[in-house]
């Protein structure tokens, strides 16, 4: 426990990363020979190194085919260079500090920096439902979904066959049982074919029938195969049926628009990422376009969004600060109580106190929600019937209470650890100097504990600032005012973002959500930087 706290404290040290550096620099020259011998002797070391590097190489090989297939050359180059670098680094005896730093750096890039960059990039697009793919994909989807059966055409039974190595559709008209052969050139009658009762062709002179299992393998070929006819084209519907279909909409590159024989005309709008008709109505399928700062301006200027931003922000700070303050205070009280040498059965108490932390949070949140139920909940039974989560003040208080219950065991745990690192001589000395118990705590214990715990308090603030689960599962942002379904009294920025970005309704607008995430990122980053800066100053005073 002691080492853990020291470790946590050193995160805030003014010169992070220098300690291992110095260690290696000091020891390298003298130990190089010895290190080499140790390595040579330990087969386990070689085997483990081979295994680890093998895994790295396997990951590279695993990543190659899809990257080549999608022609992602930049990504391919990055993966190749990183793998080569890792292989070189761990096969050479040099660059010992880098051996320690590189894995962490790679993970930092892959799991922190890349997502942040992607979020920023997404914020400048309209990526979301209806705008996920490219324009070509949208055109393909529009054309495919406009294919309808040619009125009055037969609903053919289909048998896949071959003639001279070329694929042929043998089509049986269900009404007349007449057999036709469909090729890329068109339809032609087939005489003397044997047809089963269910419409399968059993044999036909000059054609080799393709067994179902082999036809199933040639899926892409069958899917792409079409037999031109006067009214449209015959396409397969599965392996056993075919229909004569006609696309109602088609793309015309000359006017960059989609046209329909029935007179419709939808022109591509590269700003909206839609095909739009003269009345401003768009086709369902759109594509992804860059929208510049539109998402950011919308967040700042749209009155239904910006009008509530400040209220939400204030409550968000109130919630995050109260969450940290209450859990820290209760955790401290409990930890101090159990830290006293006069308390018996501390192990038992500690186990019981950790329980709320150990139980699955989602289930606990739902149980708390039900305990606040107006008519049937425990809270109503204890304190009288009241619409607890339907009244803004009690809903907010309720959330802080729930968070306190869920969060204090964590604080209790880390404070217990920090307390054990505070030397008893210091508190004893304070008492001998005549300090009261409170003064001793206030001036000796608390500052020392805070030095160790400030980074944790900051991370706890960051977590609670974005405490989506609590809000979503207990109140879902509510209660809402009668004329405002966009933002409720207990919405945090994150739950509010979730709603305005349409995730609640199942129609997601990732671009807009990313823009708001950038704002939240800026707020939390600012608060954290200021807090770290202050804690560093504090550390210099006390250490």
């Amino acid at each position, binding site marked *: 426990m002691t080492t853990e706290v020291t470790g946590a404290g050193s995160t805030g040290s003014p010169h992070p990363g220098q300690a291992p550096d110095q260690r290696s620099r000091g020891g390298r020259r003298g130990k190089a020979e010895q290190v080499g011998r140790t390595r040579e002797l330990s087969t386990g070391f070689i085997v483990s190194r081979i295994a680890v590097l093998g895994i790295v190489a396997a990951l590279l090989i695993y990543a190659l085919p899809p990257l080549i297939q999608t022609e992602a050359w930049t990504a391919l180059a990055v993966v190749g260079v990183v793998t080569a670098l890792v292989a070189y680094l761990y096969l050479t005896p040099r660059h010992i500090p880098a051996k320690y730093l590189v894995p962490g750096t790679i993970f930092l890039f892959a799991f922190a920096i890349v997502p942040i960059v992607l979020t920023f990039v997404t914020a400048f697009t309209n990526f979301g439902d209806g705008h996920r793919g490219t324009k070509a994909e949208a055109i393909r989807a529009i054309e495919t979904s406009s294919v309808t059966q040619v009125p009055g055409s037969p609903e053919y039974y289909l048998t896949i066959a071959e003639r001279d190595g070329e694929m042929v559709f043998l089509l049986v008209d269900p009404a007349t049982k007449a057999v036709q052969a469909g090729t890329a050139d068109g339809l032609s009658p087939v005489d003397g074919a044997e047809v089963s009762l269910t419409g399968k062709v059993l044999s036909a002179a000059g054609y080799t029938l393709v067994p179902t299992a082999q036809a199933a393998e040639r899926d892409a070929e069958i899917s792409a195969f079409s037999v031109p006819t006067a009214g449209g084209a015959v396409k397969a519907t599965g392996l056993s049926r075919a229909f004569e279909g006609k696309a109602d909409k088609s793309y015309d590159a000359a006017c960059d628009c989609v046209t329909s024989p029935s007179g419709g005309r939808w022109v591509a709008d590269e700003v909206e990422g839609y095909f739009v008709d003269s009345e401003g109505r768009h086709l369902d399928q759109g594509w992804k376009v860059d929208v510049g700062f539109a998402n950011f301006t919308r967040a700042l200027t749209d009155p239904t969004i910006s009008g509530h931003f400040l209220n939400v922000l204030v409550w968000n700070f109130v919630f995050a600060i109260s969450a940290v303050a209450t859990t820290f205070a209760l955790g401290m009280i409990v930890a101090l109580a159990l830290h006293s040498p006069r308390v018996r059965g501390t192990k038992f108490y500690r186990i019981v106190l950790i329980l709320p932390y150990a139980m699955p949070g989602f289930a606990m949140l739902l149980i708390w929600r039900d305990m606040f139920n107006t008519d049937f909940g425990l809270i109503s039974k204890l304190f009288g019937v009241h619409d607890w989560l339907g009244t803004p003040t009690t809903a907010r208080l309720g959330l802080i209470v729930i968070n306190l219950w869920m969060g204090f065991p964590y604080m209790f745990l880390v404070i217990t650890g920090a307390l054990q690192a505070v030397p008893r001589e210091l508190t004893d000395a304070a008492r001998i100097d005549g300090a009261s118990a409170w003064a001793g705590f206030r001036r000796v214990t608390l500052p020392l504990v805070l030095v160790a715990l400030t980074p944790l308090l900051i991370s706890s603030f960051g977590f609670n600032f974005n405490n989506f689960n609590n809000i979503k599962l207990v109140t879902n942002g509510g209660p809402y005012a009668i004329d*405002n379904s966009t933002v409720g009294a207990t919405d945090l920025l994150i739950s509010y973002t979730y709603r305005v970005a349409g995730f609640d309704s199942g129609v997601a607008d990732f671009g807009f959500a990313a823009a708001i995430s950038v704002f939240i990122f800026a707020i939390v980053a600012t608060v954290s930087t200021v807090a770290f800066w202050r804690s560093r100053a504090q550390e210099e005073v006390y250490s």
Partner: protein
Amino acid sequence: MRIRTAGVIAAAGLLMLGVAACGGSGEPAATPSKDKGNGKLVLWTDPTRAPVLKPFAEAFGKENGVTVEVKEISENQQQTFITASQQGSGPDIMVGAHDWIGNMVQNGAIDPVQLTAEQKAAFHPNAIKAVTFNGQIYGAPYAMENVALIRNTDLVPTAPATIEDLIKAGKDLKAAKKVQEILCVPFGAAGDVYHTYPLFSAAGGSLFGSTASGDPDPSKVTVNTPESIAALEKMKALGEKGEGAIKTSIGNENGIPSFVQKKCAFLISGPWSMNDVKKAGFAYDITAVPGFAAGGQAKPFLGVQAFYVAAKGKSKVLAQEFVANYVTNKDVALALYKADPRPAALTAAADAVKSLDPNAEKFVLAGANGIPMPAIPAMGAIWGPMANAEVAVVKGGDAKTAAEAAAKAITAEINK
């Protein structure tokens, strides 16, 4: 020097491991034979349906000489499917609710399914209507569901003819201390547009106008028409400041249990409540949710479960064969029903199981007036604002204010 030796050994081992890793993908997995080819079909569904569908999918695989993989997606199936499809790692067939169609189509994730006239005629007309979007059929329906009024016949022997009768019966029972609540309709603190839609529609309320082809029209939001405002007024009269029949304290988490524990004599719920209700140990009956004495019929939302052909699947022809020609078969539909008793969409299968399970038939009858839940993407904009308006009136708020606010929010969301 020694270190270098270690390095060389490591490099050699590395090379071997690398070769071993890539060896698998180079050669064909198996030699194709006459009855077992290399074709592969991947089907995604939710965890409750996966075990039910597995044997049917495997039977299809045997019949066509292909390998079929049924994968369960535990959460957020629609978004998972769309995202995976977009990046080319999606399935060939997706199973899900029909109201996903609008969003899946606007993302180009599914293809239309060509059913023959004969195949279409074999389905319940409502089921075909539900999977039709912009004039195209996008899936093969296999099960239907809608809410109905489930009644404890020990307490209420005859089905109420009107909502007024229902309220009176509930109030009498409450006065006689036989129940605690007049009606259990899942509503909750957040509101529930789905479960209360029969009441809202019976009172004359509606969400969208319709296009020339009879589809819901997103450019005509009707939640603030005089009829819809009047309907919200009626919901207000049934709410917490009125009769107390619709309450925010009864939600999805406690609606069915309250009925089972005889806290209420009436429950508005769907076929999914049957497992619990059957175990309750009292006699019950399933009837349509009644209308108001002066007013139209209750129109519950119809939900249809369907199979979809993924637009970006790798085995599209096989997927079409499965969706258009296999699950539309009566015997397959019947077997599916036996494995998972939900009212079958295929009329022949539904008729065949009538005698086995009267409940399924009763739910279908209760949904006779129902309307398929709108599948247009704009429906996503309805849920939040409409639920909020209903919560506001149930708590005694002004119906007109609530309706206007909801209409404004919905229109803004659709036009954003």
